[in-house]
């Protein structure tokens, strides 16, 4: 059930009142600290559902940790529902009563009492009469999750009576953002990760790819579940997508999410428990370093021991040279380095760099096929592909040391896997292409277009428009027309297949007949504040790249000369 509850050692996003998002791994038996908003034990989150908002409560007597209170949605929304423009804004029973019996008074616009205080104005010049030391003291007390502090702050504000209802509401919101000890637990999915990378991490690492763009790219490349493998089919079939990704894996993650291969299949509840128990025993993931820890681990292990005795699902034994990758519903990633950069995928529990992960495989382990441009275009010069590891007799092998033997198997497996990827990719027939790359899209398309099946959609993202205008210009009407009516000398007498792999000239960087419907678009979401009587677009938003998407479809041109029909040359230019 990985989707609806927080998993031990699973990744989550935590949203703070200040709208800041923290991404972290919920390791059991640790304390999660949210800075000034407080800290709490991680175990209080595990196996609780997502999207709940918690309030960090005061420590109970005799307990070493604070407990959390789930804040119901209605309570969260109360402020946003209150119509501040209405005359009756506060009911008598909403008066904030300070805990330690101080007398306070705060009267709102209509003369209704919001809160009361007898505190005298100390410093006329300062608007906020609470000193920093006093605020710190109140924060330490942390009574009722910061609510009391906020009430006191408002009371001590000398100009509170001069504020309009609107600015009062704003002031309260501002202080809540600063002092409310609340947070919301959100699942870390592609949308969340993209948001976090864009707004709080390094946006350039994901090429400033916004949510709008991720959505458009996925739709225009028609990325969807590509079907289960059909029995008896030997070669690749069904939905296979081609990707070029320089966003550190965000594009691959988005595609995988659309294909249903991003999140590991939820294990049976029983199995999860067992796994947890094993992990508790497993010293590698357990940062235990004193007796209490060991005891805790032990007690857990004991409680789960009947299940733990059953063996883990065994990895199916395969020959080194057996096909490793899925034949359908796969992503083939073309990368420019010897290893693809997929660092963001670790947030989805997939570590690309580990060639031998433990058995319940992540779906991407078999459905993500990385291939370098060298392996694609000139496989013979790639040693991993062209140099098979010679087979060694089993008795010789048995005489080797474990290390050497493991190396031998690893190399053979790597060669076989590379072989499978390269051969399958070069056969072509892909169902679609999605690109988010810093490389020139013209060069990418020149080599990727021939690999696509007829009618397959192409979608290319770029943070700036210039690379895409140049690309679209390669498929301009004039150029397409000239390609047919007045083909370049180099194209004379070439077969259709040869023309598909057109090397490119200055006049025709790509064979323009291979793609139709070239179009460039941009999309932008504008956020609005919706509050009763105060609805308007947000005043500021993140700038930077809006992002552009180029789309089109792979076409299969008819052979021979072909002329269009219809009214084209309506106006012949007059002489002169």
């Amino acid at each position: 059930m990985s989707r609806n509850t927080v998993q031990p050692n699973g990744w989550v996003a935590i949203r703070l009142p200040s709208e800041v998002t923290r991404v972290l791994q919920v390791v059991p038996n640790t304390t999660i600290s949210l800075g000034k908003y407080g800290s709490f034990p991680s175990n209080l989150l595990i196996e609780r559902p997502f999207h709940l908002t918690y309030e960090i409560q005061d420590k109970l007597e005799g307990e070493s940790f604070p407990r959390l209170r789930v804040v119901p949605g209605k309570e969260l929304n109360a402020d946003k529902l209150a119509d501040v423009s209405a005359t009756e804004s506060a009911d008598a029973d909403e008066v904030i009563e300070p805990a330690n019996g101080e007398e306070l008074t705060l009267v709102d616009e209509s003369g209704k009492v919001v809160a009361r205080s007898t505190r005298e104005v100390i410093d006329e010049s300062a608007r906020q009469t609470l000193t920093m030391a006093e605020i710190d003291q109140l924060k330490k007390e942390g009574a009722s999750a910061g609510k009391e502090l906020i009430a006191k702050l408002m009371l001590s504000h000398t100009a509170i009576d001069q504020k309009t209802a609107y600015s009062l509401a704003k002031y309260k919101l501002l202080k809540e953002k600063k002092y409310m000890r609340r947070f919301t637990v959100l699942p870390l999915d592609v949308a969340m990760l993209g948001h976090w990378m864009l707004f709080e991490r390094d946006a350039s690492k994901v090429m400033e790819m916004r949510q709008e763009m991720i959505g458009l790219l996925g739709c225009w490349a028609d990325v969807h579940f590509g079907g289960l493998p059909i029995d008896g089919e030997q070669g690749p079939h069904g939905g296979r997508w081609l990707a070029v990704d320089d966003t550190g894996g965000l594009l691959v993650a988005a595609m995988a999410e659309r294909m249903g291969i991003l999140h590991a299949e939820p294990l049976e509840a029983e199995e999860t428990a067992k796994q947890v128990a094993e992990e508790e025993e497993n010293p590698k993931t357990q940062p235990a370093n004193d007796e209490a820890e060991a005891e805790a681990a032990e007690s857990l292990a004991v409680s789960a021991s009947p299940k733990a005795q059953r063996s883990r699902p065994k990895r199916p034994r395969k020959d080194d040279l057996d096909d490793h990758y899925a034949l359908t519903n796969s992503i083939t990633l073309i990368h420019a380095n010897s290893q693809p950069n997929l660092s963001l995928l670790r947030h989805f529990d997939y570590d690309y760099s580990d060639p031998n992960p433990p058995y319940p495989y992540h779906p991407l382990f078999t459905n993500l096929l990385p291939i370098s441009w060298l392996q694609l275009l000139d496989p013979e010069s790639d040693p991993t592909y062209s140099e098979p590891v010679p087979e060694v007799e089993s008795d010789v092998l048995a005489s080797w040391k474990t290390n050497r033997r493991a190396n031998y198997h690893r190399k053979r497996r790597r060669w076989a896997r590379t072989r499978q990827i390269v051969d399958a990719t070069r056969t072509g027939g892909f169902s679609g292409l999605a690109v988010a790359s810093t490389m020139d899209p013209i060069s990418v398309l020149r080599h990727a277009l021939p690999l696509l099946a007829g009618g397959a959609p192409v979608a290319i993202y770029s943070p700036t428009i210039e690379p895409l205008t140049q690309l679209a210009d390669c498929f301009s009407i004039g150029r397409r027309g000239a390609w047919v009516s007045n083909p370049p000398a180099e194209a004379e007498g070439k077969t259709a297949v040869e023309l598909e792999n057109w090397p490119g000239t200055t006049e025709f960087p790509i064979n323009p007949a291979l793609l139709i419907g070239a179009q460039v678009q941009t999309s932008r979401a504008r956020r609005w504040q919706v509050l009763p009587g105060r609805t308007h677009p947000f005043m500021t938003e993140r700038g930077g790249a809006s992002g552009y998407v180029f789309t089109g479809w792979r076409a299969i041109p008819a052979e021979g000369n072909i002329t269009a029909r219809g009214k084209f040359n309506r106006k012949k230019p007059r002489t002169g």
Partner: protein
Amino acid sequence: MTKPSTFLVPGEKTSAGTLAIISLSRDNFLPLTLEKSTGAVDGYLEGATLNTRFGSYPHSTLLDVPWGSQVRASNVDTGSRGKKRRRDATDEDTPIASQDDDEDSTAANAPVKKAVTAPSGFIYVLRPTPELWTTSLPHRTQVVYTPDYSYILHRIRARPGTRIIEAGAGSGSFTHASVRAVYNGYPRDAADTKGKVFSFEFNESRYHKMQAEIGEHGLDGLVQLTHRDVYNDGFLVDGKSPKATAVFLDVPAPWEAVHHLSRRKMKKGGEEAEEDSNWVSPLDPKQSVHICTFSPCIEQVDRTVTELRTLGWVDVDMVEISNQKINISRERVGVNFPSEKGYNSSPADVAEAVTKLKSLAERNKDTQRVQGLQSGTEGLDSEMDVDSTPSRDNRPSNGLNGTADDAERPFMQGRLVHRPESDLKTHTSYLVFAVLPCEWSEEDEAAAMAKWPCGNEKKTIGNLDKQARKEEKRKMLEGKAKSKKQKKGNDTQPSQVVVSAMATPTDTA
């Protein structure tokens, strides 16, 4: 089970009985169900034929070709067929497959005539996708276009296996897009739970059209369409819960319907209704539910948001998508360009303008000298009277600023420019998003608490103040010393290796 939909499993080639999208020209797409004819159809000897202003295309030429193929027009006798039919039949508006005509029946028995390729005209046969369908579908209501639905489906987490409620099927654009998003295989039988779209439509004629479309597109089993007034009757299908985790409401008054989408029986306005043991929630009880409503007016948004907040939905967010298609062309400015459409023969830069003016001035001088010579005596005075502006027909001829680059092909000339297309969609609708977390009771909490007891925290993730950091460091050093000791003592106590590795990724400050 019948053949899967070409939207989801297109195969490599076109086949009879399936939908294809014909690309006639840029932005001109036509949905077409391909037919295999055994005889003449509708007077066409070649069988079912598509007639366009770009030529005629018998379906036989469109069948069994790879998707994306460019297909040539055929020579089809359209003229005599029209006359013949006008004489004896009145139903001219039935262009496809009506083989029951008396006169046609003789022709229908004859084998299909082989299509003869015409000298000009071509189209492309594209495999259907929700994007193409959206641009080409028969409009019944306002359509949810790709920029909107791509964003919506991403935000409401529609993924393979999701069960999604859609109210207001309308023209079906969102239905097609969402079925692609949630598709993870056709259900094998009634008990098999797969990703599915539960669609509701109030308008009866739209409902029937939509139902027929779902069948034609092979989406039976993936889309369940119900004729329903969701304001009053809610979202259950045959009395059962769809167990949805995503909801899309494209109805005029979403606030009239959202109270049905709750965890317990609710009245409109957020009041809990009286207990009803028969009441079932249409939502998946174990998962958070994402909703999106689609309304063109801000007043609708106001009411929807208020209702959602009253009912306890959280993370309410409203956005508006503005999408621009970009027109990319070449701007050809320069005195050497011909004065044709698509060219601008004014000077491209200051230098060119100066050269042009100089040459004009020179030519004017020449003309005046000639005129002066002709008129003879009053040469000096008349020179002042002559207007020095160049006359229109004195257009600078070739070779002013060097020769125009003859080697450069027209599509390479000029500067590459881009601008938004002339027709902009500046507003489609406001999108309101919200999330409804699942219920979490005291008992659930107690159970989870028992399973994951607290109080044994040893490490801290995230921000630390100075003191805590010092404490941590001290503990770590202590721990190291201890683990060394324990290793000596052949203990199974875990080592400290992983701690640092785990601290790095989590440190998000």
